[in-house]
């Protein structure tokens, strides 16, 4: 194998599994260390830079970082990355003076943002400080998109939303509420805007067209519309017996909301078995804690009506088996009627663009979706950009944020007459953390503690009002333990081959057998003959230059390294060093080098 090129930021970035897994590349271990030091404000600001909504995301993020977390491979449970983010948000001080401020002198460019969800808000967040004038058009009377209308207040309090959205809007964003855009053509015809960003989400809930649907309509609800109606107080109650069809995130919020406005016997019904559920494990846990029953392998066949009103639903009881192509096919075993007063359909969302004319230069594909470039977020019409759920279908908040950042880079380049395809590069800093012979600037010890368990408001209390936030957040003690579970994956083992005398000390001391000095070979063959076989091919092998004494190479399997620094501590020549990797993320109008200088000054202030 060729020596690894560690000068590319990608190599070390990938070692920081959480940051690599995060769509916005939040520097997780660094913000966790700041929390450990009690520097909550700095931690919050560091978060805000990449993910814009730390308080919101600290409660609701889909957390792709957690299954990616190295700790999962070393033991079972990831670091509670998401809930630590909330700690920073809950305990931070005033950040007003640290927020970016827009220049008084504008740059003369106007941007229209359609929809006031997280995607549009992120675009505004990135462009306002550069002197752009952003106007948001929102069909509803409130901002936040689905974060506000669909994520229930018992998971995400309105104050948290308001505070973080206001940080953006207060930069002078003009919001036109109750202002649906029903023709993109006419907006473009106004000629008021230099660019348009479409952040309208995926607003249409999927239908279930089976017998009885029309007749039972009064008691059959579409999940996302129903949640929105509950949010706006248009719906204040539901029957005692409720069936939720589907078992994704929306279903989880529907069942728990039902429980709070009259539902007593609430069941979530799934066509498949548990391993195939779309909802996250923690959402299922929270629903079951509230005594929501989950029915598996029930395939809906009809709505049952008596005297014109809904009394139940009939299901086929099915069994799933993989066919010869590995596709799951169902076999009907039996059928069953489950009585109910109301049904909520939570089987997915679709996009809908009836308001975008098809003859204005924006191509649509076979699924009636605008064709959007994966890198630039531009449609086939110059100056019209799409991001968030509107771009390629429903995702989540953190993806909407990342789309917003990328679209903002494109919009800025577009307005400044620069190429959209030449994206600003990611950069990196790598700084030794050595403080003395055997001491490092970070807590290198491995902490074997188990993941802290989130405390919840008790059941009686939480059902008193829709707004009672269920999760209490980590207390000081839980926080103190949880921060130490982080393995500091950004503190990289950095190797200098010319210094190595091949004494084997690093290999002997490594608690998880990451290191090997061996003859070079092909990757496949070498993975097999390392100190411990490197079976996880998703994780890279670091390959050094030839070592001076024997021309062998140092190989490191990145898979299980706990960044304990022992290799560097036991190395007589400092061939191994522990160095902090800082990913320099480019944002609109900020090439990575100014970005880093600014980050450094925020942290030290």
């Amino acid at each position, binding site marked *: 194998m060729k020596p690894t090129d560690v000068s590319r930021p990608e190599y070390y970035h990938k070692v920081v599994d959480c940051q690599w897994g995060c769509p916005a590349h939040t520097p997780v271990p660094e913000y966790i260390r700041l929390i450990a030091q009690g520097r909550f404000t700095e931690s919050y600001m560091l978060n805000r830079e990449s993910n814009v909504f730390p308080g919101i995301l600290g409660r609701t993020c889909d957390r792709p970082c957690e299954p990616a977390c190295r700790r999962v*491979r*070393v*033991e079972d449970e990831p670091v509670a990355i998401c809930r630590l983010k909330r700690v920073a948000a809950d305990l931070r001080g005033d950040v007003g003076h640290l927020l970016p401020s827009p220049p008084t002198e504008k740059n003369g460019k106007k941007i229209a943002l359609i929809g006031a969800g997280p995607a549009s808000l992120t675009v505004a967040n990135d462009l306002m400080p550069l002197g752009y004038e952003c106007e948001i058009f929102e069909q509803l009377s409130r901002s936040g998109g689905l974060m506000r209308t669909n994520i229930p207040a018992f998971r995400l309090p309105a104050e948290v939303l308001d505070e973080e959205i206001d940080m953006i809007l207060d930069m002078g964003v003009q919001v036109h509420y109750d202002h649906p855009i029903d023709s993109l053509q006419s907006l473009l015809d106004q000629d008021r805007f230099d660019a348009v960003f479409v952040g309208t989400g995926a607003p249409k809930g999927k239908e279930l067209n089976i017998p009885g649907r029309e007749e039972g309509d009064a008691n059959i609800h579409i999940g996302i519309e129903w949640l929105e109606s509950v949010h706006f107080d248009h719906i204040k109650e539901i029957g005692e017996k409720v069936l939720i069809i589907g078992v994704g995130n929306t279903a989880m919020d529907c069942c728990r909301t039902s429980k709070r406005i009259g539902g007593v016997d609430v069941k979530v019904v799934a066509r498949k078995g548990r391993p195939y559920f779309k909802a996250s494990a923690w959402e299922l846990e929270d629903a079951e804690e509230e005594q929501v029953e989950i029915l598996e392998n029930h395939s809906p066949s009809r709505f049952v009506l008596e005297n014109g009103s809904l009394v139940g639903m009939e299901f086929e009881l099915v069994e799933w088996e993989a066919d010869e192509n590995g596709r799951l096919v169902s076999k009907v075993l039996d059928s069953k009627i489950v009585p109910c007063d109301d049904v909520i359909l939570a089987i997915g969302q679709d996009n809908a663009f009836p308001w975008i004319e098809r003859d204005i230069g924006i191509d649509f594909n076979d699924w009636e979706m605008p064709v959007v470039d994966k890198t630039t977020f531009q449609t086939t019409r110059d100056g019209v950009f799409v991001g968030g759920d509107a771009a390629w279908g429903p995702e989540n908040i953190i993806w909407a944020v990342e789309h917003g950042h990328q679209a903002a880079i494109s919009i800025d380049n577009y307005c400044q007459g620069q190429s959209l395809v030449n994206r600003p590069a990611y950069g990196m800093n790598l700084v030794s953390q050595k403080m003395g*012979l*055997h*001491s*490092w600037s970070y*807590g*290198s*010890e*491995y902490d*074997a503690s188990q993941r802290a368990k989130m405390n919840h408001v008790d059941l009686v209390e939480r059902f008193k009002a829709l707004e009672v936030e269920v999760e209490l957040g980590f207390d000081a003690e839980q926080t103190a333990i949880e921060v130490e579970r982080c393995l500091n994956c950004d503190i990289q083992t950095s190797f200098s081959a010319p210094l190595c*005398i*091949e*004494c*084997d*000390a690093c*290999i*002997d*001391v490594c*608690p*998880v*057998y990451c290191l090997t000095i061996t003859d070079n070979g092909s990757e496949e063959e070498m993975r097999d003959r390392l100190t*411990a*076989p490197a*079976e996880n091919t998703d994780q890279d092998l670091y390959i050094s230059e030839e070592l001076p*004494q*024997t021309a062998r190479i140092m190989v490191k399997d990145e898979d*299980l390294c*706990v960044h*304990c*620094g*022992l290799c560097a*501590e*036991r*190395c*007589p*020549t400092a061939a191994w060093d522990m160095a902090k990797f800082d990913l320099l993320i480019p944002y609109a109008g900020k090439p990575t080098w100014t970005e880093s200088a600014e980050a450094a000054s925020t942290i030290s202030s």
Partner: protein
Amino acid sequence: MAQTGKPSVRHPSLKVNKLGLTQRDYEGSMSTLCAGCGHDSITASLVQAFFELEIEPHKVAKLSGIGCSSKTPAYFLKEAHGFNSVHGRMPSIATGANAANRGMTYIGVSGDGDSLSIGLGQLCHAIRRNVDMLYIIENNGVYGLTKGQFSASADVGTKAKKGEENRMGPIDPVALALSLGASFVGKGFSGDKQQLVPLIKAGLSHKGFALLDVISPCVTFNDHQGSTKSYQYTRDHVQEVVETDFVPVLHEITAEQASGDVTSVAMHDGSVVKFRPVAEGYDPTDRDGAYSHIATRQAAGEVATGLLYIEKGSQDVHSFENTVEESLVDLDFEELCPGNQILQELQKQWR
């Protein structure tokens, strides 16, 4: 923060041996030797060998004298017994322990200073008695613990850190052991575990005194240019004369393994040690041949490594002293101390 111990975290797919132990279970406390010390690599090789031989740690006794090398028993087999004797006196402690309890595995770890200066007489007698133990000399050519004075194994012309040359001829533990009739003599290098681990395993399985002289560079006082015990010098001058493979008990010997110029020696416990000479015509069961080959190599400035000599059918001290089969510690008090009458009768024989 500096680490005070190796963290408990383990590779999740760590193998377990038949005792249900992982290799990590054979470790000791964290080494306090200088980073990069050859002794630590020998410790790691011991950990691996004991794990692979599936030896119960509590049935092992670790013995040592004084020196950096003699500190190392603390760094492996934390559940084994141990005795850290005064300088150079480890062989007699080992002899006594082995006399009282022949059921244990004895591992002695010593240094070139501990064994070849103050303890030389002790070492000779342990060899002569063929005490059933593995005796490792972690040979760095200096007194590491007392800051790097030349030891008795320092070669003529080797340079100390400050530049002065050694003028006195060395005592070569390999030549010494061969001439004293040692039943197992090996030489290794801390930087070559592939060779060292099988040597350790063979030595542990040998019935009788197994001497392993292992070049083990002292990074702090003897790893500079001009030293003949540095990593670089050793790598440049090592010549493996015989390849050793250790085949544990119950392991079937396949035709391929038995073929060619491979020689097998059965150990008393049923395991087998196999050799393949690298140097043409080398026969590790021929003491005189081994002696002269090594002497020739030495004259040519080379360091001959491998299992240099093994005596077939070696008899340890218990066999030729005709002691009881059972360990003394397992005998009842009545048997061990049969009383005045029996003593009188015994003494009558010599009147």
